[in-house]
């Protein structure tokens, strides 16, 4: 397999971008990525593109990318893998280069969640992830989907409480303040989180990601071409995708996300590293409790160790392993198709020493999604070192 270099990355602001459609967001993200290339980049060099989008808005996804970005003469494919769409799109781009099929690939992720009313999103997403006859009519909205895990996790954990969930929200809001792209750039207190209106127990309003629009793009090239574009490429060191039973009824242990464990195993093995080698991570914190479970599933601590990690501020920037320095989904926002690609954008900046919330000396970073009916996870490991 050929090595894959990330030589450019960009993202739009995340937020309720009512004034922008998907046909605006996609070219904006792509142009940011093109402009980020150190030695300049001609978009005509792009040989193929992958577009990660969860819900199509304004119609035909691949055509929109080709048309709105002036890329009418290359193959474009759409990829949808629930909330793991973004990191899976990156994986597909990396595979295309590693295989030798293409030398320069564009990966875009974008979604326009707020193209429908804030409430109807519940049903839009349920239709994609729920069994039509069995689960759909129950009203198992996205927060409930994860709350069933978090409730069981809190029940079984000898240490974790709702306060530990709140600590995650406080941290990620704190991290988001310095991120100019983030949707929610304000600090919150433990009291605010714990006293906020309840959404789905145990998640209050501040335990939940906002609804967001946005896009992100990365440019991947073969190792031989990297020098042409930059002297400081970021290397795609490992990728992984894990799956699980799709119905909650069939998940034997809901205190963990087995897809994450499986995806991490693949990605660590491919990168030849272990969880202890990761300097910075962007993990899927659509709901606070999910971030805690991720710590354990990704191997950053032992089972039930997550509560102490957040309590001891080990996952703050400056801590043992900073998690979500961008603010995470919680504060940065969560346009599902864009989320994983935007995580890679953040890690790309971190590894190049360019982040507004820089982790000192970061050489290895990990991006992680978990989603769908908690049945899929995608992980990308990026490094400043080739091997």
């Amino acid at each position, binding site marked *: 397999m050929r090595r894959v270099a990330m030589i450019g990355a960009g993202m739009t602001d995340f937020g309720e971008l009512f004034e922008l459609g998907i046909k605006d967001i996609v070219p904006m993200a792509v142009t940011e990525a093109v402009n980020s290339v150190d030695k300049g980049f001609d978009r005509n060099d792009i040989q193929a593109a992958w577009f990660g989008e969860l819900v199509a808005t304004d119609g035909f996804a691949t055509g929109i990318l080709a048309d709105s970005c002036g890329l009418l003469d290359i193959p474009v494919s759409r990829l949808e893998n629930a909330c793991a769409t973004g990191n899976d799109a990156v994986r597909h781009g990396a595979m295309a280069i590693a295989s030798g099929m293409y030398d320069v690939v564009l990966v875009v992720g974008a979604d326009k969640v707020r193209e429908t009313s804030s*409430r109807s999103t519940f049903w839009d997403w349920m239709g994609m992830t729920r069994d039509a006859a069995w689960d759909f*009519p129950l009203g198992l909205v996205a927060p409930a989907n994860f709350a069933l895990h978090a409730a069981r996790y809190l029940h079984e954990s000898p240490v974790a409480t709702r306060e530990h969930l709140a600590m995650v929200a406080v941290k990620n809001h704190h991290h988001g303040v310095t991120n100019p792209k983030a949707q929610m750039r304000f600090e919150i207190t433990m009291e605010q989180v714990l006293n906020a209106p309840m959404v789905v127990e145990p998640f209050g309003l501040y335990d939940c990601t906002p609804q967001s629009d946005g896009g992100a793009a990365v440019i991947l090239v073969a190792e031989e071409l990297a020098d042409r574009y930059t002297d400081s490429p970021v290397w795609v060191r490992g990728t992984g995708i894990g799956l699980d039973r799709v119905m909650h009824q069939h998940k034997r242990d809901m205190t963990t996300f087995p897809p994450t464990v499986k995806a991490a195993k693949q990605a660590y093995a491919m990168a030849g590293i272990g969880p202890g080698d990761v300097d910075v991570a962007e993990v899927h914190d659509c709901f606070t409790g999910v971030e805690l479970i991720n710590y354990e599933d990704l191997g950053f601590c032992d089972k039930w160790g997550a509560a102490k990690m957040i309590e001891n501020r080990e996952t703050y920037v400056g801590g043992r392993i900073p998690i979500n320095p961008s603010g995470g989904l919680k504060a940065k926002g969560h346009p599902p198709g864009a989320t994983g690609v935007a995580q890679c954008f953040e890690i790309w900046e971190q590894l190049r020493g360019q982040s507004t919330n820089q982790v000192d000396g970061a050489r290895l970073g990990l991006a992680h999604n978990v989603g769908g009916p908690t049945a899929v996870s995608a992980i990308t490991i990026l490094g400043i070192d080739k091997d």
Partner: protein
Amino acid sequence: MIARMISISRIGTALPPWGNEGARTVGDDEDAVTLAVAAGLAALGDTDPSIIGDVVFVSRDFPLLEGGNGAALLAGLGCDDGVRIREIIGGSPAVLDAIAHATDGTLVIGSDAAGSAGASAVLCGRSGATVELAGRVTRSMPVTTRDARGNSSDYADPRLLRERGVNESLARLGDPRPIAAAGLSAREAGSVCDGNTPKLVTTGASAIGFALAALVEQGASGTVLAVEKATLVVARLGEGNVLVTRDEPPARPRPGGQLAPGASVSISLSAYERAFDAKLRLAAAECADCGELSYPPRHRCIECGSEQPTTLVPLPRRGEAYSVATIRVPVPGLISPYTVVIVELGDTGVRTLVRLTGATPGSVAIGDTGRLVFRLVAVRQGVPDYGYGFLPDSAQAEQKGAA
């Protein structure tokens, strides 16, 4: 008039927990079918549903006039889908008539979802107490009406109804003095009956079953009257052993909740049809090779990967909450708050994801035990989507505490 002799051996009654001791109201997940299932299962007790050869379902509150309630009722009762079922639009006179004309193995159910809600089911056969038709008169006194479109009117003249309706019809039947009257208010019943007539919680199709239940519990026998406006049926209840089982939780106020505006929950009727038997009969697919239970049924065994044809087997109905989530935000087309529960069924290892029922949303915790009961999960594009809800044992305690 031909009078035939049939006996009744079992009576089941069911009331929603919501309302007060005088009148119950259905919850959002109940209708005439779910109440009928509850009453029918109460009547059956541990008896194998295969003894039922004929079902008569009487109501004026059928959820569907077209599309069908019968298959859901049979599935909920655990009856074979080859069992004869008739839906009769009517009140207590129709029920009493059906009982008097029943054959061995007929289950006659009266169910009321509008107004004062409840259901009763009477199992007819060769043993028990005899019920013999004594008279019938069908007359018109439409002081209240409801048409096919649901438009209703009220002439508002109770004295006219009593004097030219009920009393005139009684006179035409030779002024019988019944020991119980179903379909009248307690005061009206008292005025037409001899002795201590049982006080009934419903006045529609289910009322006669409640009356018969009360009479056999008292060991009483004699003339019983079923009334619907000016239409009357009179029968004689004999002596004999009748087992009465009441699924009647004490009444308490229905929990509040707010319906968020929005489109109704969409449905795939092909998915509905594929799931129907397993979902409404609470039955899992048993693997022919390894015996593993898959719920919902699936093409490939969840345990061993066998793709051999499977057999549907009933699942245990008692279980324990494995995880719980209470949705408090508004969700379009739904009433919030509501609680979803993953229930582990008996010692099968099978889990199911259902709504909490019969209890205040949020009032169930992981580890709580309870049973699965037949409920209306949603109405989807006009189609009642039936399944099961988790009724926690703690709801019974809550009810006792409130009573």
